[in-house]
């Protein structure tokens, strides 16, 4: 009994240590965002700023078009998430329910495509988008993000579809429901948490993406947040640390908000994906 209690205490301690480890960068970022320059250069840094200031936020907004960049990021990330899910869901359904050779080959290709480095595809992609007059346009960037998110979204969704028992669809068919009715009324609600989790994945990866946005967006008014954040960095890694931390803190907020709002659905989605019929 005592051994079990000790084991449990150890588990909690490990969990707590892990949570602290995960939270550390974010908490330090928040702390830095509110510190004046002299505290940033202190040999004995403190968690709580001694003289908290909003100057870093003011400076960040003064120097860079953060709101425009946030809006661009939001449009790109939401667009990518919605379109990726709309395309991936029916594809995933087909791949999960009809295990043909083609579906297997497609799955293999999806996995392999994840191994392509960005630099390998960026120049051909750039040329294609240029010819389509989609350089320096957020819709062009959305297209790239959709293509980039699709393989993994598809892979995730196939797992979720497989977790929905095919017997339920068969039972609905026996009860007289047509294919569309079965998909809309039976499969879709069960698949919803998985779709939300997949959309969230696509959203976060597009929200944080830097390289494509850097190369494809030319003018300041089109740039996204990750690109604008690098404008606080100088040569050889020198940084305007206060405003950078303030801007980075603001950039993390939407992801946190989205997570907080749909946390329950994600958990449900993950569990659904984990269960095999």
């Amino acid at each position: 009994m005592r051994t079990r209690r000790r084991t449990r205490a150890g588990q909690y301690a490990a969990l707590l240590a892990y949570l602290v480890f995960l939270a550390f960068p974010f908490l330090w970022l928040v702390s830095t965002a509110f510190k004046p320059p002299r505290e940033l250069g202190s040999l004995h840094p403190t968690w709580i700023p001694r003289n908290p200031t909003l100057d870093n936020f003011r400076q960040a907004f003064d120097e860079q078009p953060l709101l425009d960049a946030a809006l661009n990021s939001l449009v790109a990330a939401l667009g990518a998430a919605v379109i990726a899910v709309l395309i991936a869901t029916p594809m995933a359904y087909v791949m999960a329910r009809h295990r043909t050779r083609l579906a297997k080959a497609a799955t293999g290709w999806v996995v392999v495509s994840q191994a392509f480095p960005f630099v390998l595809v960026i120049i051909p992609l750039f040329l294609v988008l240029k010819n389509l007059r989609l350089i320096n346009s957020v819709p062009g960037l959305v297209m790239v993000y959709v293509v980039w998110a699709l393989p993994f979204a598809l892979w995730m969704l196939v797992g979720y579809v497989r977790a929905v028992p095919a017997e339920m669809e068969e039972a609905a068919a026996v009860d007289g429901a047509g294919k569309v009715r079965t998909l809309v009324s039976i499969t879709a609600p069960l698949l919803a948490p998985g779709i939300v989790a997949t959309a969230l994945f696509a959203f976060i990866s597009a929200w944080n993406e830097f390289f494509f946005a850097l190369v494809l967006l030319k003018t300041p008014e089109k740039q996204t947040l990750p690109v604008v954040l690098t404008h606080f960095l100088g040569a050889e890694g020198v940084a305007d640390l206060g405003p950078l931390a303030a801007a980075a803190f603001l950039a993390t907020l939407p992801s946190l908000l989205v997570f907080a709002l749909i946390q329950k659905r994600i958990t449900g989605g993950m569990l659904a994906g984990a269960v095999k019929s």
Partner: protein
Amino acid sequence: MRTRWLTALVAGLLFAAASGCSGDGGGSEDGRITLRFQSLAWQKESVDANKELVREWNAAHPDIHVEYVQGSWDSVHDQLLTSFEGGEAPDIIHDASDDLADFAYGGYLADLRGLLSERLKSDIPQRSWETTTFGDGVYGVPFLQEPRVLIANAEWLEKSGVRIPTPEKPWSWGEFRTITDELSDGDGKYGVAWPLKEPVSATLNLSLSTGGQLFHRGADGKVRIRFDEADAVVPRTIHDQVNTDASAPGSTLGSGGSDTLPGFFGGKYAMVPLGFSYRQQIVQQAPKGFDWQVLPAPAGADGLAQGVSPQTLSVAQDSPHKKEAAAFVDFLLQPRNMVRLALGDWMLPTGTEALRDPALRTDEHGWAVGAGLAGRLRSAPAQSVRGYPEWKDKVATPAFQEYYSGAIGVGELRKRLVEDGNLVLARYQR
């Protein structure tokens, strides 16, 4: 039916691709030219200075509109490479001279020799032009540069009674080692802290003062590496400060310049070798009452000579308006404008006329010391050596890091830099 849809879709895409091939070349129907100027300015004063200059140009030149585009140092090489390949590069490009070689040899940058005014050509010294000369062409205008200096805790130095060096009477490397030893107490206080996250360029650039060249171009035009006694002075000084005298902490060897500032302000280190522009961070972050000063880096057999890779302005080879772009560069680098840019970036201008400006000769914040060093700045030794980036990353960086931390001796350092290094360079010079 399905096939017909597919055919229509493919045809549509091909049409769109074909129609997208024609660009407008930066011109417009009313004859107004638009030039894109990608700047890497990042500090507020510097961005403001650049934007103001663009505004002034646009006000004075209604027919040639310059559009300011913000770039970033962190990713400029990849971003430019893609833009060049895609034919979408900005007309006027801000970069550093050590990043230009590949672009120049790749034919992406315009040769500026016939485009620049005589005033600009003669205002910038030949030693600065050498940093942007590749083969027969000149592919950028060097306009801002920074020497590595010693930022010192003035109170500490004054109390210790050591001789304070000036550009006229600098410390020798031997004297520097003795002084840092004297300033250390062996109990957590060090005479110097070396931030050597990027050990290669720091070592090579400082080694010019002792006559170190490392890269030697032979009669056949090929570059070979030699590590002579002159090349060993600076590395050996640093190595001995860390490993023999304990006058420099080993813990900062992997740090960037900014990382050492808290220890400097906290009184752990008497001096930190940093780029001249770090003064801006020091002004911002130093605790109230902290007394600091700028000292020249130590001198060797070749005096205060030091390697630099200046910031540059180039014109894209694909730009349809090279003459206008060069005119804008000329405007941006008028002496009074060069001073504004230099003050904004806390760096030194390359232009002789700008360098004479009283604002850059003041004792405040060590400007005068920097200006006193300007005449000794040379092209960084590895500037135009093809294969240098690979040698630096794969061979030299780990070798210097291990040497400075005491893991290997100077013999092994020499062996790796020379033997492994020449194998790397040979691949680029076949």
